[in-house]
């Protein structure tokens, strides 16, 4: 009973303090707003603690934490008059995102839809196919795993200047960088996955008189799926990083990496942050999409079973 009451009191005071902070910010009383924001932060942390104690584990606690940080960020930047070249306020970034939406979309299309996605498809596809080929010769497979692991840990981003030189400034060179970056993690994971089927299972397929291809499609690829999706998920992040970093070495006058490096040079940090927000959203959405596909494809695997 008291717990429920305490929860209601905490929630209500957090709400009041948040509204108060926003009002103070709107009226321009920055110092008071920072104080209110700090109190609101404390109230929200107490609220999170209540939620956690009540067994709430979903997206609400992290979202509330993110909200606290944004609130303190906004109030702090305005109260201490932090110059925009060091840290722009949240509202300035949002305003910039709204006013520069067409530019942001153009950069997104150039970097993500053309460079990153094309490279992702090529790199992951090539890694998969080479892994299948290597899998047919055990000696090759034993050699490829260490070399692939070695190269996967390398700073492959460094090939960007070379590939920009070969494929020109446009998105093709970015796709090439992404393809190279995605190739080795995909190769290594697929080779490992293809080795995941157990001997008993393979023997069973043999007793069914299943040939190589039947065994591959009915047993080994499904058994490899968790590894393959692991590779695909690693590559989603690498794809975006590769496409953005490759643009630091030369690009047409659009693209997220180009915009970040030029706007940093002009100290227009609100635009840089806007691009970073877009990159973060795109990266998370891409990862989430692959994770959803994984859940649909490998629903039988223990790691996908939810504890209910």
């Amino acid at each position: 009973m008291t717990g429920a009451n305490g929860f209601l009191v905490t929630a209500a005071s957090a709400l009041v303090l948040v509204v108060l902070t926003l009002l103070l910010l709107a009226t321009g009383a920055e110092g008071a707003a920072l104080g209110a924001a700090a109190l609101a932060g404390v109230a929200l942390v107490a609220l999170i603690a209540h939620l956690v104690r009540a067994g709430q584990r979903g997206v609400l606690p992290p979202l509330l934490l993110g909200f606290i940080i944004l609130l303190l960020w906004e109030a702090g930047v305005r109260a201490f008059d932090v110059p925009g070249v060091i840290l722009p306020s949240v509202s300035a970034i949002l305003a910039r995102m709204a006013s520069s939406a067409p530019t942001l979309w153009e950069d997104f299309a150039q970097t993500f839809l053309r460079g990153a996605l094309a490279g992702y498809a090529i790199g992951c596809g090539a890694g998969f196919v080479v892994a299948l080929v290597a899998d047919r010769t055990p000696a090759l497979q034993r050699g490829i795993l260490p070399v692939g692991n070695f190269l996967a840990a390398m700073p492959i981003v460094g090939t960007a200047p070379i590939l920009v030189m070969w494929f020109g400034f446009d998105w093709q060179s970015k796709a090439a960088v992404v393809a190279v970056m995605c190739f080795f993690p995909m190769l290594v994971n697929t080779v490992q996955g293809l080795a995941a089927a157990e001997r008993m299972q393979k023997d069973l397929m043999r007793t069914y008189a299943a040939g190589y291809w039947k065994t591959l499609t009915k047993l080994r690829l499904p058994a490899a799926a968790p590894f393959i999706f692991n590779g695909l998920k690693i590559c989603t992040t690498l794809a975006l990083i590769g496409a953005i970093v490759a643009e630091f070495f030369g690009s047409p006058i659009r693209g997220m990496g180009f915009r970040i490096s030029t706007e940093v040079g002009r100290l227009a940090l609100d635009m840089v942050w806007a691009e970073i927000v877009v990159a973060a959203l795109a990266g998370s959405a891409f990862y989430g999409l692959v994770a959803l596909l994984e859940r649909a494809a490998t629903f039988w695997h223990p790691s996908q079973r939810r504890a209910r």
Partner: protein
Amino acid sequence: MSDVTAAGAGVGRSAATGWIGRRVVALGPVLAVVAGILAIWYAAVPPMNIHWAASRAARADVAVSVPEGQSIRSAGAWALVLRNPGLIPATYTQDKPRLPAPHQVAAELWSTTAGPPVTSNKSLIHHASITLGATLLGFVFGALGGLLLAVGIVYNRVMDASVMPWAIASQTIPILALAPMIVVVLNSIGVTGLVPKAVIAAYLSFFPVVVGMVKGLRSPSAIQSDLLHTYNANGWQGFWKLRLPAAMPFLFPSLKVGIAASLVGAIIAELPTGAQGGLGARLLSGSYYGQTIQIWSALFAAAILAAVLVGIVGAIQTATLKRMGFGR
């Protein structure tokens, strides 16, 4: 949660285990694959460089055979190679080739490491040491910070519920996009030199350690915790005598990923400011002036550095785990 952990760890997890301190038996297939890569590389050099060699030859009034109705520029690379086999040796000796041959890169690596004094601007060791300094400083701070945050997450349910999802989500965000901004902002408030690079390196090595350590600190089973309980151990002893030792096998793979990521961060951080020294600066200046051999040698230096760093962590891992009785 567990699959994301694997995602972060998968990049370089077993990079060192196959390399350092393993038996020689495994070396045969590895050497075969390396030889195959070198063969493909050598075979790719003539078509990549033939256009330049052919136009040089044409200017020197040597007859260059091109397909009907085409110029040297428009002719296909393989057509030029097959019609002018005499030009192939020239493709391996160019100053600024599109694709340098492996021995050219090796020669450049040798001459820039063994030749000039270590302090000179031409020495690759000088540049590598600049990058290495930022890498190590960032790695130490990133790893320590990651350890502390992991302890906080494991011992505090509120932090677990609210911070941990962000630590995982941050792995899906292209953090490197932040690098230029961090460097410029720190410059504008007067922090220059090693620190901005170390900040980015720390940031990149931070999250693998958090995720790995959280998993590791949670790895003791209930029966082990219960045993400590019957010994009347307090929380502090439980941490030092059970959780921390149990986390070690999880810590080291994360450290390997972290130190490789830290190196990448330090290199990327050298790009946006036009830093005077460091492997990233070598990459950038090589790309400005078309010095392809310099780019390749910087790339290989970075790769060797990464392998050595991961190898050292791997060696510490083997020694520590052996002493602790985790032996394989």
